[in-house]
């Protein structure tokens, strides 16, 4: 029995390349509840996007979901036929992408693209679908919706297109909205508007949001629960307040330190030394130890597991969970 709306269990997505197997997502667990926002945070290449694509089953060759379960309302999405999966996509779970400039088909009007999902999934007539499309555009606060509905993507700005994408994604009232870095390509003022809009819609429609981002500012504003990923694994997870107030994993601490702070006067921002390891050639032991100043001998030999440090705050680090003493301070 699963009480969660969407639950990912031990998800492993591997890519079989010429240079070897890339374990892009390696045993990830998390869940999303109705009306809540889950943020997945991490550097580029840590497997955030692949995780979200895996949930939608959009992984393409040479990638493959090796094992794990993606339970949506208790049913495993990985067991569904292509046909059943198509009925889930866009209808029950939908997705917004990073690049609003290229995510709309240039040859169709905005209206048609919103109407298409409505006609497909909700079996609405053309007339009703158009009415609904205008409503959706108004919902995402596009001015002159009745006019914009007949316009083409090239006539809209990036922020407008992202709103259209959200309108498309929400047209069928999905229960889960996956947003893969929805604000990365937008400028800061538009970012804030889009995030507010998503928060607003979440409350109004009770949608669960799974937000992929590398921007901790976005996390602080949006998230209820945060999952921090590193090299395909979850290194720390917890409620947003707890995690920001009391980060445990050295990687999370590093991420938090590398963001600008109004209260401190610094010339340079802190950064985490080193690079994300080459995914075909991961270090033995904890994947983070080459960049970790607390690294101990144990870290270099064994991989830590997620351990509870608080009722719902988990961390996978020997030092943070108190299994070994680190010599570094």
């Amino acid at each position, binding site marked *: 029995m699963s009480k969660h709306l969407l639950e990912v269990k031990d998800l492993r997505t591997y890519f079989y390349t010429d240079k070897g197997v890339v374990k892009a997502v390696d045993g990830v667990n998390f869940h999303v509840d109705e009306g809540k926002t889950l943020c997945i945070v991490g550097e580029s290449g840590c497997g955030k996007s692949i995780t979200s694509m895996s949930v*939608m089953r*959009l992984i393409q060759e040479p990638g493959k979901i090796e094992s794990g379960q993606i339970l949506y309302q208790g049913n495993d999405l990985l067991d569904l036929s292509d046909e059943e*999966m*198509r*009925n*889930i*996509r*866009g*209808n029950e779970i*939908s*997705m917004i*992408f990073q*690049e609003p400039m*290229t*995510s*709309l*088909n*240039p*040859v*169709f*009007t905005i209206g048609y693209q919103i109407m*298409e*999902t409505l006609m*497909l*999934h909700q079996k609405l007539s053309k007339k009703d679908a158009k009415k609904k499309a205008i409503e959706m555009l108004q919902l995402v606060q596009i001015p002159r919706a009745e*006019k914009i509905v*007949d*316009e*083409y993507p090239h*006539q809209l700005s990036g922020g407008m297109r992202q709103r259209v*994408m959200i309108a*498309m*994604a929400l047209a069928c009232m999905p229960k889960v909205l996956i947003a893969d870095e929805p604000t990365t390509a937008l400028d800061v003022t538009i970012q804030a508007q889009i995030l507010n809009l998503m928060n607003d819609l979440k409350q109004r429609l009770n949608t669960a949001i799974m937000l992929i981002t590398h921007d901790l500012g976005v996390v602080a504003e949006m998230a209820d629960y945060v999952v921090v990923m590193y090299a395909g694994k979850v290194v720390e997870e917890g409620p947003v307040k707890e995690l920001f107030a009391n980060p445990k994993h050295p990687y999370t601490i590093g991420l938090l330190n590398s963001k600008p702070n109004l209260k401190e006067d610094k010339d340079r921002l802190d950064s985490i030394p080193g690079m994300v390891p080459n995914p075909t050639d991961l270090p033995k032991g904890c994947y983070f130890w080459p960049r970790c100043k607390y690294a101990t001998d144990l870290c270099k030999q064994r991989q830590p597991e997620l351990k509870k440090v608080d009722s719902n705050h988990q961390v996978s680090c020997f030092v943070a969970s108190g299994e070994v003493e680190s010599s570094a301070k």
Partner: protein
Amino acid sequence: MQEEQNINKTKVMSPWMMVWSRFKKKKTAVAGLIIFILLVLSAIFAPFLTPYQLETIDKAARNQAPSAAHWLGTDNLGRDYLTRILYGGRVSLKVGLFAVIISIVLGIIIGGIAGYYGGWIDNLLMRITEIVMSFPFLPLAITISAVVGEGLPGEYKMYITMFIIGLLSWPGLARIIRGQILSLREQEFMLAATALGLSDRRKIFKHLIPNTLGYVIVYATLGMASAILSESSLSFLGLGVVPPTPTWGNLVLSARDAHILTTRPWLWIPPGLCIFLAVISINLIGDGLRDAVDPKSHR
């Protein structure tokens, strides 16, 4: 207030309206379009443009030179020649149009599937395409026509000609479409379409093909010109549409007789001129469309 009115006045331009507005600026293309429309109209309204019936044979008026009664004279059976040219235009244009439609349908399906699925499907379909492409057109068309067309009544010859031309001319388009789709399918909007739960068929034919339509239209116009030429050559060789059904191609056939060639030029110049006008006007349209469809081509 003033500004608001201005906003409302700017009409939404669909991509096709933009193509049309660019097409309009090109004089040669518009000239081609006008010539082509005149040819099509004359073919459609042939019965109203001539007082004679297509099959009326007037033995008293055989082999006449152009006169007030018969503007382009009569043929060896006393049929009005202008009438035959007008009706011949019907057949020639019809064969050209349907041959192109057949080749477009095949090209879109084969190119679309090959480009979208890639892998061994692509490999298989493209090898077939290359095989069809590597056949020399005329000898093969002549062979098929001779084998299939044997003993069939004259009217069916027209349809056979359409199919032969259509079935042999799709590879070029299939290749163009495959190439386009190979790059289009990697675009993010296709991922978005998948994420919205669209089926493969819908993605290929509703989302990808419309994106290639610019190329398809250019190809179709140019393809129609070559289909008309192919039909003429086949008919001229007596292997396409055969008399009594007239086409521009088999009307020119009369010029094979050296006597007619030298003494009665009104029998072969007008249909030849029609072929020339049809092909050049379509080519001008195609050229204009190519520039109008491709945004990179303007200065």
